[in-house]
């Protein structure tokens, strides 16, 4: 979840409440993010030098701390997106998180999709090569994984068709840009 918080911060400096809402908007059907988890993660990001406090607002209401990515944090985010999600097949929420984060932040979407496809296809290719002597049951397990990898790829295709340029709606502002507006 650390990198996902980095992605949520990549668009603009935000406070914890914004981050929660942004997350819930990105993943409308997932379990809503708990406030406690947001603040705990932000504290950890600050401790590791991945995020920094840029201002503290009090608009008549409660005090709110606004966080932004550090250059280190952005590097970390880019490194995360540069690596395709593991071609695990089932239960792989990681591919969903990465794709959505890539499409929202607009960080090298085409490259990300390409690497993810290649990674999945390579795994499918391996699985399609049945080792000699493999039993029917073993083969069926492989087929199950292949079918899920195929489903992942179809979803990825759909995602890139439906959200081709969302990166432009919310351009990533790097720390340097923020410091020199």
């Amino acid at each position, binding site marked *: 979840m650390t990198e996902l918080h980095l992605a949520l911060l990549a668009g603009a400096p935000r406070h914890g409440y914004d981050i929660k809402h942004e997350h819930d908007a990105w993943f409308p059907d997932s379990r809503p993010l708990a406030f406690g988890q947001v603040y705990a993660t932000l504290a950890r990001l600050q401790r590791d030098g991945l995020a920094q406090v840029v201002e503290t607002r009090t608009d008549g209401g409660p005090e709110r701390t606004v966080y932004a990515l550090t250059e280190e944090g952005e590097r970390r985010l880019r490194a995360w997106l540069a690596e395709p999600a593991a071609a695990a097949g089932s239960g792989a929420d990681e591919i969903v998180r990465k794709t959505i984060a890539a499409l929202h932040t607009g960080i090298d979407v*085409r490259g990300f*999709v*390409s*690497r993810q*496809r*290649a990674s*999945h*296809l*390579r795994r*499918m*290719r391996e699985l*399609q090569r049945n080792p000699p002597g493999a039993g029917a049951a073993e083969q069926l397990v492989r087929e199950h994984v*292949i079918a899920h*990898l*195929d489903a992942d*790829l*179809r979803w990825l*295709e759909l995602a890139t*068709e439906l959200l081709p340029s969302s990166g432009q709606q919310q351009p990533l502002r790097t720390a340097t840009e923020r410091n020199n507006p």
Partner: protein
Amino acid sequence: MSTVELSGVSHAYGRTQALRDVSLTVAPGEVVAVTGPSGCGKSTLLLLAAGVLRAQSGRVVLTGTDLAGADEAARARIRRRSVGIVLQFGQLVPDLPVLDNVALPLLLEGHAPREARAAAAGWLDRVGLDVPPTTLPSELSGGQAQLAAAARALVTGPLLVLADEPTASLDTATGRQLLDLLVTSTTAAGGSVVLVSHDNAVAARADREVRLRAGSVVHEVALS
């Protein structure tokens, strides 16, 4: 020498630009998947590589011959000697029994009908099409026609097999078997295979994936 080499190829049907400045090189023994959404130019690319269509710009070199300098007869000869083509449909000659359809490239090449038919019967057996040899294409199901087309593509022992959605009308298991046969029997003899498909399982059979979108290459990655 590459089996087929397209460089900077563009093609349009009337006002529809099907391919824009596409380059693709297929090495001997290599299996390449050309993927992409419908209407991205995959099939056009295949027909250009086969010399069925002529590139409007750019260069296509097929088994060492620059197609720009080859007339229709020369392109046809290269095709029947060195290229096997499997399309989605509309490829078997109506009114010609399945056996003769499969033997066709050999017959056109001048082989004696008896030999040609014997070879054709062997390939029909290998692709697993079990119908009487006098069956007409109109009496076959879509999947059976596809198997017959695959047998015909392989009957000459081609240097290059071009397959457009070869498994589209087959069930998963039969499709997998056919794909295996197309790939293994071609590459074992040093031939190359270009698989055009939007099916990821077909793409996963390739050594390399070339992905097209709106007539241009968007990515090209090695899978092996």
